[in-house]
C-alpha cells in the first residue's frame, strides 16, 4: 500500500518538473495520464481476482505485480493451507468412521429429532438399515417394533432394551440409547443371543435336575409313609417295596448320568495311544441291545475292521446310548442297523432305525440336558434325559460330531464321523463279525 503511494509520488516529481518547465497544464495532464494508466492496471488485477473468486483453486491464484503481487502471494499461501487442513480433516474423519465400522456392536447416531445421521454396517444388518437411502429418516420409521418405539419415546435410557430381532429368527438384541453432545443420541445394538441362550440353559438345568429328582422322591416318600403307618398284607407290602426300589433305581441312574457328564467335562482328554477294538465293542453292545429288545426288533451289525484310539468306557457309553435309544423309540417289529464303516480316511459309526422319528424342530436341541422331544414317552421308557448330552460330550472328546437325520414316522439315523487321526489303518483283531 505504502509502496503504491510512494510510486505515485515518484511520478508526481516529473509532472511537477514538466509543469514548471513547459506549462502547469501539461504537468497536470501528464500526471493524470500516469494515474489513469495505473488505475487501469489495478482494474485488470481486480478483474483477475474477481474471476478467481468465482471458482477458487490453489493452482491458479492470479499473479500480479507490485502491491498486488504480495496480496496474491498471501492468498495463495492461505488457500494451500486451508486445502491441506481440509485433507487432514478428511483423513481423520475417515479414520473415525472406519473405527466405527470396526466395532462389533451396531452403532447408530441420531439427531435431536431421532433422525438417522450415521450407522455402521453391523447396525445396518441387525436393524435392516441402509445408510444410502435412510440418512435423515426418523429411526422409528424403520425400526418399528412397538417395544422399541416406546423405549425411544419414553426417554428413560438408564437401562438397555431387550428386543427379539424380526430379521433373524431367535436373535436377541440388547439396545441401549446413550445421549451425547447436546441432544444427539447414540444407539448401541448388541447381539446377546448367545448369552441369553446360556442363561436360559443354566436356569433350565437347575430347574430340571430338581424336578427330575423330586418326582421319584415324592413317590418314594409317599410309599414309605404308607408302608410305615398302615398294616399291610405281605404281598401288598412287597409290591410297594418293589415300586420304591424302582424309583430309587431311577434316581440312581439320573445321579449316575450326572456324574458321568461331570466326569466327561472335567477329566483329561481321552488317551491317543490306547486302542479300542470297535468291532468287538459293537458286538457286545449288539448283544446288550438284543437283551433290552427282548426279541421285538431285528438288530443287525455291519462293522469294518477299523479301531479307534481313545477311551473305551466313553465310547461304550456313547454308542450304547445311541443303540438303546433306537431300541426304545422303535415299535416292536422294527429294524435297527448298527454300522461301523470306512469313509475315505475317516470312519463313521451309525445307528439307523425305522421307528417313530423326531420332528425337525426338536433336532437342534436334542443334546441339551433334560430336553425331551416327547415328555411322556421318554419317562415311560426309562430315559433320564441325559443320554444324548453324554453321547455328544463323549464323541466330541474324540473329535467326532453327532449328526442326526430324522423325519417323523420314517425313523432316525444318528451318526458320528471319526477323523483319521483317531483311527488305525486296520483292526488289530481281524475276527470277522
Amino acid at each position, binding site marked *: 500500500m505504502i509502496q503504491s503511494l510512494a510510486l505515485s509520488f515518484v511520478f508526481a516529481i516529473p509532472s511537477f518538473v514538466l509543469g514548471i518547465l513547459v506549462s502547469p497544464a501539461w504537468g497536470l495532464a501528464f500526471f493524470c495520464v500516469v494515474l489513469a494508466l495505473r488505475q487501469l492496471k489495478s482494474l485488470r488485477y481486480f478483474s483477475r481476482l474477481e474471476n478467481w473468486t468465482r471458482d477458487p483453486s490453489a493452482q491458479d491464484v492470479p499473479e500480479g505485480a507490485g502491491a498486488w503481487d504480495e496480496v496474491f502471494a498471501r492468498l495463495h499461501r492461505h488457500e494451500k493451507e486451508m486445502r491441506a487442513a481440509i485433507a487432514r480433516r478428511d483423513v481423520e474423519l475417515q479414520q473415525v468412521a472406519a473405527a466405527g465400522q470396526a466395532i462389533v456392536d451396531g452403532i447408530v447416531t441420531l439427531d435431536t429429532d431421532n433422525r438417522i445421521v450415521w450407522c455402521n454396517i453391523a447396525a445396518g444388518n441387525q436393524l435392516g438399515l441402509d445408510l444410502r*437411502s435412510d440418512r435423515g429418516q426418523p429411526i422409528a*420409521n424403520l425400526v*418399528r417394533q*412397538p*417395544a422399541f418405539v416406546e423405549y425411544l419415546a419414553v426417554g428413560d435410557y438408564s437401562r438397555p432394551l431387550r428386543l427379539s430381532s*424380526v430379521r433373524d*429368527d431367535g436373535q436377541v438384541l440388547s439396545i441401549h440409547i446413550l445421549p451425547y453432545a447436546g441432544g444427539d443420541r447414540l444407539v448401541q445394538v448388541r447381539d446377546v443371543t448367545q448369552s441369553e441362550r446360556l442363561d436360559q440353559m443354566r436356569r433350565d438345568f437347575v430347574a430340571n435336575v430338581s424336578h427330575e429328582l423330586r418326582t421319584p422322591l415324592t413317590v418314594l416318600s409317599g410309599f414309605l409313609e404308607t408302608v410305615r403307618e398302615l398294616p399291610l398284607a405281605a404281598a401288598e407290602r412287597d409290591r410297594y417295596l418293589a415300586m420304591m426300589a424302582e424309583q430309587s433305581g431311577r434316581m440312581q441312574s439320573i445321579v449316575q448320568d450326572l456324574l458321568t457328564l461331570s466326569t466327561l467335562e472335567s477329566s483329561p482328554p481321552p488317551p491317543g495311544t490306547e486302542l479300542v477294538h470297535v468291532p468287538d465293542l459293537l458286538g457286545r453292545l449288539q448283544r446288550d441291545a438284543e437283551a433290552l429288545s427282548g426279541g421285538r426288533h431285528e438288530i443287525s451289525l455291519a462293522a469294518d475292521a477299523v479301531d479307534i484310539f481313545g477311551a473305551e468306557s466313553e465310547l461304550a457309553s456313547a454308542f450304547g446310548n445311541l443303540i438303546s435309544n433306537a431300541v426304545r423309540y422303535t415299535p416292536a417289529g422294527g429294524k435297527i442297523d448298527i454300522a461301523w464303516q470306512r469313509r475315505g480316511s475317516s470312519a463313521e459309526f451309525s445307528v439307523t432305525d425305522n421307528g417313530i422319528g423326531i420332528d*425337525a424342530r426338536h433336532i437342534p436341541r436334542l443334546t441339551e440336558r433334560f430336553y425331551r422331544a416327547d415328555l411322556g414317552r421318554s419317562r415311560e421308557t426309562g430315559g433320564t434325559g441325559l443320554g444324548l448330552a453324554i453321547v455328544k460330550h463323549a464323541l466330541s472328546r474324540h473329535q467326532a460330531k453327532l449328526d442326526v437325520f430324522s423325519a*417323523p414316522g420314517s425313523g432316525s439315523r444318528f451318526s458320528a464321523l471319526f477323523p483319521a487321526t483317531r483311527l488305525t489303518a486296520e483292526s488289530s483283531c481281524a475276527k470277522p463279525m
Partner: protein
Amino acid sequence: MNESVHLSKQFDEDLTGLRTHVLEMGGLVEAQARAAIHAYASGDTAAVKDIVENDYRVNGFEKIIDEETIHVVAKRQPTASDLRLVMGITKIVTDLERIGDEAKKIAKGARRVHEHGQLTLPRATDVRHVADEAIAMLHQALDSFARLDVVKAAEVIHADTKVDTEFKALVRQLITYMMEDPRTITTAIDIVWICRSVERIGDHAKNVAEHVIYIAEGRDIRHAGKEA
C-alpha cells in the same frame, strides 16, 4: 414471504408426523401378527388375551390417523405428490387395520386349536412357514413406504403369488387329512381359517405396496392383472 415459509414448514411437519404414525401403527400390527402366529405354532395360548386386547390400540391408531388426514386436507389443501401421500395413507391405514383384525382371528383360532389339544395333524408347521412369508411381505411393504422405494414395493406385489400358491397347497393337504380321518375335521377347519387369515395378511400387504407405488409415482396399478 416469511409467513409462507413458516406455513410450508409446518405443513412438512404435519406430513412427517402422519407418516410416522402410519409406520408406528404398521409396527404394532406386524408385532400382533407375529405374536399370533407364535401363539399358534408354539401352543402358548396365554398370549392370545394380550393380542385380542391390543387390537383396540390398532383401532385407536386408525381413528387418530384418519382425523389427522382430514385436518391436513382441510387446513392445507395439499396438491400433487402431497395429495397422493395423504390419500395413499388413508388407504394404507384401512389395510393395516384389517391385518390387525386377521391377527386377532389367528390368535383366537390358535386358542381353539390348542384347547382341542389336537395339533398332531402332520405338516401343521407349514402354516408357520407361509405366515412368516406373509409377515415378511408386510415388513417389506412398510419399509418401502418409509423409503418410498418402488422397487421393493414391486417385489412385495410379486411375492403375493407365492403365498397364494402355498395357501392353496395347505388347504389341499388339510382336505386329505380330513378325508382320511374325520376326527380331525374340527381342528383342520380351524387351521384352514388360520391359513385363510394368513393369506389375507399377504393380500393386504400387497395392497399397501400398491398404495406405495401410487404415492411415489402417481401410477394406479390396482387390478392391473399381469401388467402389474
